């Protein structure tokens, strides 16, 4: 088992991370651009990244680029964006087979590097701005996606919930908040925002999976480093969310037959390792408090999960349930937090949670995506734990550590999405 992890400060606000394991036959290159929170810039840069993922000067039509990628053994190319703490993170990704797995000895790596660099640094332009066609198409795609949020009630509830749990913070923003900016945008303003992002963003380039040739990595890194830039860099992205003085409650209705209950618990003095184990004991293991006591024993819901937004020092409990169970389920969730804070758990439960967490951490080695997310998380927090490092720290935790951590979590917000009317499909 040989996994190479190598992170370097390449200068000019460019950092490279190499996570290589020869057992993988393909690899991904992630180019992440982190920018400070700014609603308008976030909207424009998101659209810009989608546009550069469609074409470039060499392949001005989306179909031409797609055909080249398909012919290159179904290589992938994509864009996505989201939040890292309160910062905004835009990621351009390509993936391809390692050169030794091409059929006729082609250098797929060099071709995919060309495509990546052409899309990012030599996009297809018209009159010094993005093409009107792809500007319109990509904008419409984002607007459609914003409209379609309501199709998935769990996703919809999460968007609304973040508005109250993280009120006044950049973390509360969703794509819906970008709608006005997008509608007012034009190819010139989007291209301008894109160039500014290239100039100022902290750039994190990650090569993850099977081996990517050194000359390819060097070419990509050198291109970014030699670009004329004035970067805004940040060491860590932790941005704790303040605890409200009173628990905020809100409820909305939607056409659905089931309810979504979301609860945010916040913690001021966050111990990453204790919180991870606490979360496992609360929700992640087969013997966890929420699963056993809220779902299995009392049949109060179909699911009840807790997850940590740990750059925000917040734990979110997400429950899908029938309306008549709302009050009892909310109380039952609170009881589980209290039980852990009161030390109402056995050593066996804690040991099982440690085992489960350890097993999960080690499984990251078998997925290039998981390894990428593992080390991205470390970078965002300013830590450098390997899965084994973290397992050691978690295994060293005691009952008292868990009790102390559980006691620090305070309920901050409760959000309920309720049925407006029966959810049966009306067939016409």
């Amino acid at each position, binding site marked *: 088992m040989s996994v190479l992890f190598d992170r370097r400060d390449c200068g000019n606000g460019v950092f490279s991370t190499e996570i290589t394991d020869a057992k993988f036959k393909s690899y991904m290159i992630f180019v992440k651009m982190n920018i400070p929170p700014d609603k308008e810039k976030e909207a424009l840069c998101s659209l810009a990244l989608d546009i550069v993922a469609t074409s470039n000067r060499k392949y001005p039509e989306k179909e031409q680029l797609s055909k080249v990628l*398909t012919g290159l053994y179904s290589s992938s190319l994509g864009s996505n964006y989201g939040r890292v703490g309160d910062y905004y993170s835009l990621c351009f990704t390509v993936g391809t087979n390692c050169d030794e797995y091409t059929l006729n000895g082609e250098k797929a790596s060099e071709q995919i590097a060309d495509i990546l660099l052409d899309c990012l640094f030599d996009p297809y332009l018209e009159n010094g701005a993005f093409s009107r066609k792809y500007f319109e198409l990509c904008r*419409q795609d984002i607007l459609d996606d914003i409209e379609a*949020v309501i199709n998935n009630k769990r996703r919809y509830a999460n968007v609304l919930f973040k508005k109250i749990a993280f009120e006044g913070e950049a973390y509360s923003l969703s794509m819906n908040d970008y709608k006005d900016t997008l509608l007012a945008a034009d190819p010139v303003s989007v291209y301008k925002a894109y160039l500014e992002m290239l100039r100022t963003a902290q750039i994190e380039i990650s090569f993850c999976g099977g081996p990517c040739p050194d000359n390819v990595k060097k070419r990509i890194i050198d291109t970014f480093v030699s670009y004329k830039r004035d970067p805004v860099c940040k060491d860590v992205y932790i941005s704790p969310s303040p605890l409200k003085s009173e628990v905020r409650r809100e409820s909305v209705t939607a056409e659905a037959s089931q309810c979504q209950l979301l609860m945010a618990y916040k913690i001021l003095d966050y111990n990453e390792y204790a919180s991870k184990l606490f979360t496992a004991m609360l929700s992640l293991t*087969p013997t966890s408090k929420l699963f056993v006591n809220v779902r299995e024993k009392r*049949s109060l819901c179909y699911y009840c999960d807790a997850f940590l937004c740990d750059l925000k020092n917040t734990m979110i409990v997400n429950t899908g*349930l*029938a309306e008549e169970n709302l009050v009892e389920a909310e109380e039952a969730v609170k009881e589980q937090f209290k039980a852990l804070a009161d030390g109402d758990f056995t050593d066996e439960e804690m040991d099982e949670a440690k085992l489960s967490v350890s097993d999960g951490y080690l499984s990251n*080695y078998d997925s290039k995506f998981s390894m990428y997310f593992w080390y991205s998380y470390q970078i965002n927090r300013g830590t450098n734990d390997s899965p084994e490092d973290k397992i050691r720290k978690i295994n060293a935790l005691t009952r008292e550590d868990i009790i102390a951590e559980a006691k620090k979590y305070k309920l901050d917000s409760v959000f309920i999405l309720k049925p407006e009317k029966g959810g049966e499909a009306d067939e016409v």
Partner: protein
Amino acid sequence: MKYEPEIIRSKLTGEECHLYHHPSGLDVMVMRLEGFRTTEAMFATKYGSVNNRFRTVDSNEVITVPDGIAHYLEHKLFENEESGVYELYAKTGASANAFTTFGATAYTFSVSGDYKQPLRILLDFVQKPYFTQENVEKEREIITQEINMSNDSPSRAIFFAVLGAMYHNHPVRIDIAGTVDSIKDITPELLYKCYNTFYNLHNMVLSISGNIEDEEVLSICDECLTPAPDIKLETIFPDEPAGVVKKRVHLVRQVGVPIFMLGFKCDPLKGSERYRRSLAADIMLRMLFGPLSPWYKKAFESGLINSAFGTEVFSAEEGYFTILLSGESKNIDALYDSIVKEIEENKKRPMDEDLFRTLLRGSYGSEIRKFNMVSDCTDIMCSAYLQHVSPFENVDILSTLTIDEVFDTISLLDIDRSSLCTVSN
């Protein structure tokens, strides 16, 4: 006991898996993956939501069971007489799960540490049902909530609406979890009846891959499996007319952008013939309607479709074969007309050979990457076994597939045998 495997090998990558016919009646598929830490196992029975009419082993009578019972059984099997199965897994660090599809129910675990004890737990609990009036009743509330939650999903609703519009009698038209009403009729007795019929080792497979040794796996099978007589299971499917039930269905739901699904009902096929036809149809769909096709470019650029558009061949051994085109559109009527026109025009003109070769090459690339995730290997071996094909069947087909075969599948897009389902506010 020493076992000799049937070795199944990929011609493209040289990867191989081993098939063992264990004397208990169970077939075991093993793939050892060098360098991986994780082990994933899947213990599956050829029993899914469509198997709702069958001949019972005890009385030899043909019975029809309530819709959703296979899924209900899956939920209930996680409880044994002494304790919950999850509690046993918790002592090993393994994470366990299960799922029910139209044609199968599978129980899985994944572990990075020692896989032997989780494997014992898996083989043991699936062989030991424990259904009581009380524990069956308790589960009803959870499954009711699960069904209601699924009903809140327009994409799931449209999928079953289009199947319901295409199929008159075939149980594929019914949601895997059944309905809130149908699960009310499920009793411990019925669960035992289904269990005793379908959870027979001759009707099951163990698929396991990762950081494992064949001998260890088989030794645990020797230890944990109770030999079962081959009961010559008989599942009965109703006669299904060739035509569809309804040409068009509309659902009213709260959606952001109207969604659609156009389904083409095709004649069912079995085994390698089905698999080959399905792969050929998939390439045909990508040639006619995929992102590289002239139609896609036109439809996308004119705003008829957005990036949610997609195509799928949805078929199985159990008597259904459909082709689905789905996505979001603000002008579904115009989109429908455009699709119909494209089909008719493509029936008359030769296919683009260059595009065909590009798509084949892309498919090869995907095949090379396919067996590089432990969970994928376990899943592919299991589903291939249940569908009576080799896990490496795709590669064999790709190497011999002709453009004429692909062209021939355009005939599957028969508008007279299609149903369009739409969802809007």
